[in-house]
């Protein structure tokens, strides 16, 4: 057994695992994070996609020991603490970007990863960005629409003024700016 410490959806877990344990099995069977599903079990379908260290990975193709010391985000960790859906989740809901829903957790995590790198993707970039995720219902049209909508929502959110900071000591006066002599 090997001791690992991973943070999943903001909570730290210390566990002894067999080195052969796949991350997806650790998440589902030890930590109860069953939102992440096993689809093909052959590294193809992407249903088991989670973020590891902030980047998408197929958790059926990662050993739990490889995640030691890293932060994992699953589909269960996207919504706000008040239950407010992440913009990508909301867009999948609004656009009915699912049929049977099995690929959805992975699709959403891949879309979150893609939008972190490319906040304004074209349809072609969305399709290419999601190439590692298969929808056997072939519901791709609405999935692409949802990712496009989520991108627009997130860009609008990013350009809004930040919410007022909690009251604290007043910020120091800005340093005087030297004007070129």
């Amino acid at each position, binding site marked *: 057994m*090997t001791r690992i410490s991973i943070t999943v959806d903001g909570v730290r877990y210390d566990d002894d695992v*067999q*080195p*052969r*344990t*796949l991350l997806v*099995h650790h998440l589902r069977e030890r930590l109860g994070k069953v939102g992440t599903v096993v689809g093909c*079990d*052959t*590294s*193809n379908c*992407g249903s088991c*996609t989670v973020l*590891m260290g902030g*980047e*998408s*990975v*197929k958790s*059926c*193709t*990662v*050993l739990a*020991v*490889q995640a030691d010391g890293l932060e994992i985000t699953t589909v269960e960790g996207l919504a706000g603490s008040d239950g407010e859906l992440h913009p990508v989740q909301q867009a999948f809901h609004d656009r009915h970007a699912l049929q049977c829903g099995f690929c959805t957790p992975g699709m959403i995590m*891949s879309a979150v*990863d*893609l939008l972190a790198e490319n906040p304004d993707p074209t349809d072609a970039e969305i399709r*290419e*960005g999601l*190439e*590692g*995720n298969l929808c056997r219902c072939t519901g791709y049209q609405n999935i692409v629409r949802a990712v496009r909508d989520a991108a627009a929502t997130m860009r609008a959110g990013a350009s809004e003024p930040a919410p007022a900071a909690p009251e604290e000591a007043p910020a120091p006066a800005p340093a005087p700016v030297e004007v070129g002599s």
Partner: protein
Amino acid sequence: MIPAAFDYAKPSTVDEAVRALAEGGEDAKVLAGGQSLIPVLRLRLAAPTVLVDVGGVGELRGVRDDGDALVIGATTRHADLLRDPLVARHAPLLAQAAAQVGDRQVRHLGTLGGSLSHADPAGDLPGAAVALDASFEIAGPGGRRTVSAADFFVDFLTTALAPDEILVSVRVPKRPGWTTHYEKFNRVAQAWAIVGVAAAVRRENGSIAEARVALTNMGSTPLRAGAVEQSLAGSAATVDAVASAAGHAAEGADPPSDAFASADYRRHLATVLTRRAVLAAGGIA
């Protein structure tokens, strides 16, 4: 599907990794990103007794400028190659080939050294490494040695690495004045290459001075298309001249027939893709 049980070692230096491999014997395996190895373990096509995880060895990761060459650590990930400014400037062919590997999730974990060491004939990086005349630094119990890309790929899934050796870095010569392109043909997104062509071209005064062309999945290892290179050297930089040279692409190749393509179709693809790759590399329209 769950891999068979194995022991796990996580060294933090190259020397520790080499020692762990030696202690593990013939059934020890190196784990880098795991994107080729873990599927094989899960299917129990391999059952190593020890996995030596080199993910924590700092020396193995990153890209550095070494004068007339780039030195790229073996565990530099495909995703890193896509973003690295030195690679973009001096070896864009590697980034272009890495962009074709698997999908985003695979590129976040899969490594340059892992792809090269796995040596799948349908892999995208081996052909690019051969076209760029890369050389590989290898560490073993007896110290370090360097092997050229041409000598590294020995056979199907077989390299010059001994069981107790690991790939440390890949040295890619800078090639001022050369331009490159990787052309891949596959069935669907994220699929392996049916055939791929890595081309590097140096133009001079409107003609092609030199070219290097390597073929993916046209045999058990990446192949130099020597007849194409000879035909291109000194030829006019025209579509007709390139098409004529590309007609030699399959000479001497012994491509496989499988569920995706017959050997004859692969020979045909090699000529078409070589023409496209050389035209794109040379900016010839």
